[in-house]
């Protein structure tokens, strides 16, 4: 590969960039042709909406269209930062997302380490098969399962509560409990699946390290602490950056499938708010501004995280 590239440059030293580009395209025209549909789809379905963000700076009216609607500058952003709705939605988003990070980010790491310690392969495979499964269910199905099991009318959990002399709780209707329901069900659905990344990371650790540690008499606990954990630290950091970049995505699909007007106050997040106000009330410009706020901050968070990770851990997402 390298050699042929070098030969090309020697044989045609005076050609400009575009001339070389042209000869490359002629030689591999079919590769470029394969790439074309993907690029066109990207331009149409991903980049056109990015251009559409401009309506956040206009008073968009669907009948006038994009170009005829008047520019209004930062009007919608001013409204955003003074609106009570937005303050509430931002607060909910951050609370739910942080709860999920605190409770659900470390869990797969711990579980992956524990899974790794299972010596009976049949048991291990069975456990893995079972705990990966919920990942493949839709949020609608998961909410169906839990609406049922948490209901006040014959739900298993409430039966247990009543059995121990407690009051039944309408988990899906109770503003005190609804966020816990969101976190717990997200944990139920994704914890098993999230272990895969860490299990993959274990396989990259040099087995000789464990051999050496055993000869030195290190217990399993010390091996976990001094070999396994440091071995997967880069992956943990990477996953954490990705998670932080998504901090404004508190789980829109999940919440839309689970919430109802009685718990809007504690569970309306940016994504659900944009859905309800944007499409429901056709408040296009304002909700685009809300969505843009979410995208821009998320983007900055990911870039920052990646920069820090490259600087201190010499490993980034790209």
């Amino acid at each position, binding site marked *: *590969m390298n050699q042929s590239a070098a030969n090309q440059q020697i044989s045609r030293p005076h050609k400009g960039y575009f001339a070389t580009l042209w000869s*490359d*395209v002629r030689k*591999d025209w*079919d590769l*470029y042709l*394969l*790439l074309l*549909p*993907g*690029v066109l*789809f990207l331009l*149409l379905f*991903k*980049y056109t909406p*990015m251009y559409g*963000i401009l*309506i956040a700076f206009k008073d968009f009216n669907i009948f006038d269209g994009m170009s005829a609607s008047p520019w209004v500058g930062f009007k919608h952003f001013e409204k955003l930062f003074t609106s009570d709705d937005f303050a509430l939605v931002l607060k909910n988003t951050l609370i739910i997302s942080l709860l999920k990070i605190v409770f659900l980010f470390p869990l797969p790491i711990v579980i992956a380490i*524990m899974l790794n*310690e*299972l010596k*009976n392969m049949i048991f291990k495979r069975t*456990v893995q098969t*079972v*705990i*990966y*499964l919920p990942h*493949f*269910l*839709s949020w*609608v*199905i998961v909410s169906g*399962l*839990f609406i*049922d*099991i948490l*209901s006040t*009318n014959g739900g298993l959990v409430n039966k247990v509560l009543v059995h121990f002399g407690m009051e039944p709780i*309408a988990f*899906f*209707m109770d503003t005190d409990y609804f966020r816990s329901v969101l976190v717990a069900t997200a944990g139920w659905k994704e914890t098993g699946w999230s272990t*895969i990344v860490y299990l*993959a990371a274990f*396989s990259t650790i040099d087995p000789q390290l464990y051999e050496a540690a055993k000869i030195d*008499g*290190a*217990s399993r606990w010390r091996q976990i602490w001094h070999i396994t954990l440091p071995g997967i630290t880069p992956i943990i950091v990477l996953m954490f950056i990705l998670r932080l*970049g998504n901090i404004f995505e508190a789980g829109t*699909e999940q919440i*839309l*499938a689970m919430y109802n007007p009685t718990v809007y106050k504690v569970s309306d997040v940016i*994504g659900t708010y*944009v859905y309800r106000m*944007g*499409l429901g009330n056709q408040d296009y410009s304002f*909700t685009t501004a809300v*969505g843009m706020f979410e*995208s821009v901050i998320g*983007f900055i968070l990911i*870039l920052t995280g990646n920069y820090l990770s490259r600087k201190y851990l010499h490993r980034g997402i790209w």
Partner: protein
Amino acid sequence: MKTASSPSAVSVAGKSKPKTGIRPTLPERIFNVFNYVFFTLMGITTLLPFVNLIAKSLSSEAAVISGIVNLWPIGFQLGTYKFVLQDAAFMNSMKISIFLTAVGTALSLFMTTITAYPLSKPRLRGRKWFLLMFIFTMLFSGGLIPTYLLMHKLHLVNTLPVLFLPAMVNVYNMLIIKSYFEGLPDSLEESAKLDGAGNLRILFFIALPLSLPVLATIALFFAVYFWNDYFNAMIYISNPSLKPMQLFLKELLLSSGDFMRNETLNVDAALNTSPQSIQAASIMIATVPILLVYPFLQKYFVKGVLVGSVKG
């Protein structure tokens, strides 16, 4: 911590003991027991909601309404499943979902693969820029409203293609396939070239057959995505005859239980089945396809995910 462990490993190297490895210490044995108990409980917790749901779907109306069904059906009947499977609206939504899953999976797998292949060739000029262009869309997006307005302008709202066209190139899956292609030996391509094969021939007759495990994995991911998607349908589809199953189910679930009532399925009053059982049966029917393919595909997708995640 060198109590019982070290002798067998170091001193008795000459005497070949049948047991390999080191005997666990007491804390280790306690941990092992704890570990097995923990994962047994975790497995049960994962399966419990299903068992409960199956029991409800198979129980009689009286038993379900009085709330006495736990993990075993009471007043066993199959009428609920019969009822759901005969409901025209439910079956229509299922047909829509099957169509979406089949067409969506085939098209997106094809599109994603042909996009991944050129990008896996280091000699492709401009590769870096193309890659950057793709990856950027993972980090930043126009958001819901501008995307909706685009679909509106393209007259895709309330049509089925809106549910698969925009999903045809999935950047994350593309990167997984690309890294798999990059792992194929260069010599294969070179020898095929010497035999006069062009790029397309190499892709379809050499690279693709060698990539079946990763393609199967990605196909599964796409299939699960299209089968499970309700969000896009909720945004773009209001015509009842075009609603896929997940959206249909969502409306069915929110229509009763702890929520307010609003008939989606027309339950015949004379029928010996409760709305709760009907919901339960519908959920089970929607889940069965995944439960059926899942164990067979597991070995593929785990391998596929590992390829993708380790390379990142």
